[in-house]
C-alpha cells in the first residue's frame, strides 16, 4: 500500500539526469545563439537608453512642466495636474529624483509596449474562440511562471541589464491588457454590432467605430492593471541590473532599512498613481456618452 500514501514518482537518478541534460543543452544553446539574439534586441536597448538619457538629462523643472502639460492635455482636470506635480516634487525633495526618473523612463517604455502589444492580441482573441483557447493558457503561464524562473534563461541569453528587465516586465504586465481587451470586446452588445454590420462595416471599421469605443471602460481597467503590474516588477527588474527605484528597495531589504524601503516603495506607488490617474482621466474623456445619466 506504499504507492497509496506516497506518489510513485520517477526515480531520483533519472530525474537528475533529465535535469542535467536539459540544463546542459540549454547552456549550449545560449552559447551558440546568445550573440545573435542579443543583436536582435539592440534597438530596444537603444530605445531604453535613449529614454533614460532624456529623463536624466532634462532639468527637473522641464520634466515637471512636461508632466503637468501631459496631465492637463489628457485629463483637463486641474486636480490631476496638481496631484502629479506635487507627487514629483515630494519625490525630488526626498532625494529620489534620479532613481525615479530612471524608473519612469523604463516603465513608460514597458507600459507603452504592453499596450501596443496587448490590445491587438486582445482583439484577436476576442474575434476567435480558437485564438482564445490557445492564448489563454499562454497568458496563464506568463502570469504565474515565477519571473525568477524565466529570468534564469533570459539572463543566460541576454546577460543582465535593461533588455532582460524589459522582457521580464512586459511578460508579466501584458496579460491583463490582453485579457481585459478580450473581455471588453466580447461584452459589446450584440444588437449594436448587428446595426454596424447592417450598414456594411468591415470588421476593422466595426472594431474602430463600435467595439473599441464601447469596450473602453474595460480596456482602461486593463491599462490600469498593466501599469500596476509593470510597477510591481520594478524590484525584480532591479535584480537583473535595471537601475531605478528597485535598487534602493533591495538595498533596504538587505540592510533592514525599513524607512528607506518604504520611501522608495512609496515613490513607486506615486509613479503608479500618476500614470494611472492620467491614463484613466484620458480614457474617461473619451467616453462622453457615459456621463449622461438617465433619470
Amino acid at each position, binding site marked *: 500500500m506504499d504507492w497509496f500514501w506516497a506518489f510513485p514518482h520517477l526515480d531520483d537518478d533519472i530525474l537528475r539526469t533529465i535535469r542535467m541534460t536539459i540544463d546542459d543543452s540549454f*547552456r549550449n544553446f*545560449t*552559447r551558440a545563439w*546568445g550573440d545573435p539574439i*542579443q543583436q536582435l534586441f539592440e534597438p530596444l536597448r537603444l530605445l531604453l537608453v535613449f529614454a533614460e538619457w532624456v529623463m536624466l538629462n532634462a532639468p527637473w523643472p522641464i520634466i515637471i512642466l512636461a508632466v503637468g502639460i501631459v496631465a492637463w492635455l489628457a485629463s483637463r482636470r486641474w486636480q490631476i495636474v496638481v496631484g502629479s506635480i506635487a507627487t514629483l516634487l515630494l519625490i525630488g525633495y526626498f532625494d529620489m529624483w534620479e532613481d525615479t526618473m530612471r524608473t519612469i523612463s523604463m516603465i513608460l517604455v514597458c507600459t507603452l509596449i504592453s499596450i501596443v502589444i496587448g490590445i491587438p492580441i486582445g482583439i484577436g482573441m476576442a474575434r476567435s474562440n480558437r485564438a482564445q483557447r490557445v492564448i489563454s493558457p499562454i497568458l496563464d503561464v506568463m502570469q504565474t511562471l515565477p519571473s525568477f524562473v524565466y*529570468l*534564469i534563461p533570459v*539572463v*543566460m*541569453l*541576454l*546577460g*543582465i*541589464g535593461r533588455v532582460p528587465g524589459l522582457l521580464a516586465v512586459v511578460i508579466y504586465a501584458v496579460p491583463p491588457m490582453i485579457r481585459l481587451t478580450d473581455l471588453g470586446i466580447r461584452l459589446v452588445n450584440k444588437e449594436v454590432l448587428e446595426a454596424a454590420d447592417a450598414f456594411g462595416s468591415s470588421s476593422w471599421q466595426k472594431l474602430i467605430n463600435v467595439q473599441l469605443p464601447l469596450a473602453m471602460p474595460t480596456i482602461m481597467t486593463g491599462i490600469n492593471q498593466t501599469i500596476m503590474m509593470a510597477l510591481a516588477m520594478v524590484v525584480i527588474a*532591479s*535584480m*537583473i*541590473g535595471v*537601475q531605478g527605484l528597485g*535598487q534602493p528597495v*533591495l*538595498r533596504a*531589504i*538587505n*540592510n*533592514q*532599512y525599513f524607512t*528607506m524601503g518604504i520611501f522608495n516603495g512609496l515613490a513607486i506607488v506615486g509613479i503608479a498613481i500618476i500614470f494611472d490617474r492620467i491614463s484613466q482621466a484620458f480614457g474617461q474623456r473619451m467616453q462622453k456618452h457615459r456621463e449622461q445619466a438617465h433619470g
Partner: protein
Amino acid sequence: DCNDVTIASMNWQSAEVLASLDKFILENGYDCTVSIISGDTVPTLTSMAERGQPDIAPEAWVDLVPEVIGRGLEEGKLVATGAALSDGAVQGWFIPQYIVDAHPDIVTIGDALKHPELFPAPEDPSKGAVFNGPQGWGGTVVTTQLFKAYGAEAAGFELIDTGSAAGLDGSIARAYENQEGWLGYYWAPTAILGRYPMVKLNFDAPHDADEWKRCNSNADCPDPKINEWVSDKVLTVTTTTFAERAGEPVMAYLGTRSWSNKIVNNLLSWMTDNQATGEDGAKYFLENNKDIWSTWVSPEAAAKIEAAL
C-alpha cells in the same frame, strides 16, 4: 585596455562598498572608465559566466552559490584574481549576544541544542528552532547536514526554512526586538551583525576536509558527521575576457586588493549607523585608511587617488 569597465555591485553592503571602492580607485588611479551595474548575485554572476558582462565581481562568495561560480571558474569563463576578504568569510551557527550573556555556558552548538526552550520555534513554541539559510545556498545545505549530524531533531528542534536572506534577516530582527532566543545559520561580515550583535557557536569536532566534501556539503548524503565549519573563500572574480584585455596594473591591483573581516565590520557598522550607501562607505574608507589602501596600488596611482579625494 581599461575603458568601459563594468563592476557588479551586489545588493549587500560589503559588496556594494567594495564595488564603489574599486570604481573610485580604477577611475582615479588607473584612468579607467568604470560604471557600476547592480543586480542580484546569481543573475549577475551568471551573466558574467555566460555573456561576459559585467567585467568584475569584487566580492564573490564561492561557497554560497557554488554551482554558478564554481562552474564558471572550472570552465575558464571566470578568473579569480584574489581573495577579497583576506581571512575569508565566516559561516556557522549564531546566537544573539544577550543569550550568551544570560547563559554563559552555551559555547558550542552541542550546548545550544540542549536548550530547545531558549530557541522557540515560531509556529510551534514547544520545540526549538534552527533557522536555516536561503534556499540553494551552500551554507543551507551544510546546515541541513549539521542538523542531522547533531541529531537536533531528537533534541527537540526543528529546522526552519527561511527561504531567503530577507526572511532570515527578518527572523533575526524579530527575535532581537522581542529579545527572544534565536539559533541559526549566518555569515559574516554583514551589516546585520553590526546592528544585532551575535556570537558564532563553536563546533564539537575538528575540521575534516575529506568528510566535509563527502558528506557535509552534499545534500544527498544520508549520514553526515559533526565537522567544524572553516572559513570560506571570498574571491574577486573577473571574466576571462576582461582579464585578458585589462592589462597588468589593473589585474595586479585586483590581485592584491584584500581586506580583513575586522576592517570590513568596522566600515559596515559605520555605514549602518549612517544608513550610508556604498559610495559613501568607499569615500569614508579612502579618507580614513590610507595606510591600508596605499599598499594595494603603485605609489603614483596612490598619489592620483589621494589627489582625487
